[in-house]
């Protein structure tokens, strides 16, 4: 279920990592793994198509750079990406607040005869 959750919100997670600055793919995935305490457990190779899709959508731009003797594609958020991140973040907070509201322990009713309906 945790993997499904990560997969379902992969775009938000990727945009969130890249909010902190440009990164190449391996750094994005390492950040994601570290910051989610290992909950993020998708096949790492599937992150690249997701990054490419976000770039196709105009939310990221990328540039090839030589770093440490290797050619890497470095991604960064666009202005549209920042707007999309803020929007998705807002939706996520609303969603988690709603789930919290349902799951939060409510005071139970004491049904003992004579005091029925009184708060416990």
């Amino acid at each position, binding site marked *: 279920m945790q993997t499904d959750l990560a997969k379902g919100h992969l775009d938000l997670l990727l945009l969130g990592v890249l909010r902190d600055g440009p990164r*190449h*793919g*391996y750094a994005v*995935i390492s950040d994601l793994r570290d910051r989610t305490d290992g909950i993020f457990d*998708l*096949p*790492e*190779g*599937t992150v*690249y*198509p*997701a990054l*490419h*899709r976000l770039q*196709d959508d105009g939310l990221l731009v990328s540039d*090839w750079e030589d770093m440490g*003797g*290797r*050619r*890497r*594609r470095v991604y960064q958020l666009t202005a549209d990406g920042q707007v999309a991140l803020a929007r998705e973040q807002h939706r996520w907070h609303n969603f988690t607040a709603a789930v919290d509201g349902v799951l939060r322990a409510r005071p139970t009713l004491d049904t003992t005869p004579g005091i029925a309906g009184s708060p416990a």
Partner: protein
Amino acid sequence: MTAPSGSGAAGPSRGGAAGDSPVDDYLDRLLVAAPGPPRQVRALLAEAEAHLRDATDDGVGRGLERSEAERQAVARFGTVRIVADAEARRQELPFGTLVRQIITSALLLGGIAGVAVGASGVVVAAMELVGSKTFIVNISSHTYLARSDCARWLAGYPGVHSCYQAALNDWASDTIMFRLFAGVLGVMALAAYLLLRRRRRFGDLPASVVDTIAVTVYGLAGLWSLGLGVDLLIQQENGAGGRLAVAPFALALALYYGLRLMADVRRAPVGTAV
């Protein structure tokens, strides 16, 4: 893209000869399985290689043997099938985009067809001026004309006294007017096309698809009208001009799009669909 090991490239993170390195084996299989145009495949492969080399270096840094570090890096990356499928899904055209492309391209091709029909209307009008109505309308004195229709046509042309002549006038007028109206619709469709193309979300279908449809539709229309016109001429029947007027426009469009299609095909990278 960094060169795979076994190709002679040196470096601390390189494995041994081809076949000895899980990373190289993986990249070889990904190269074969990855979908898309060569440039996208190369980009994916370059990223995959940099990732796997980095992950291997991290594993070695944690004290793993290089081969074991490579094996773990490959395992975490996901199977070739999973990665290739994810990339293929990314490259799929969203349904909404496809619908918008179909609408845009239909406006273009339909608009051009409408303008061509409109132009044929001008030619038909010229034929009527310099020739006769019988050259543009397929009607003869032997054609059955219903009495109720005759009354309507004769009412429309008070100076004409025969049903045949009234029908000839009416059909010739309709032939020209309908074609000119199609031309106006064509111009409107092209204007709508140009307006939509200004929006980023509205693109055309791939050029080769548009060209193929255009060659087929315009070519068939041109040959059909040419065949009908020639047949009427051979049979010495009326109306040949009306059919023949469309043929040059349709065939010229088919030729233009045919040449474009040939150029598309010749420019396409070897081994790819256009």
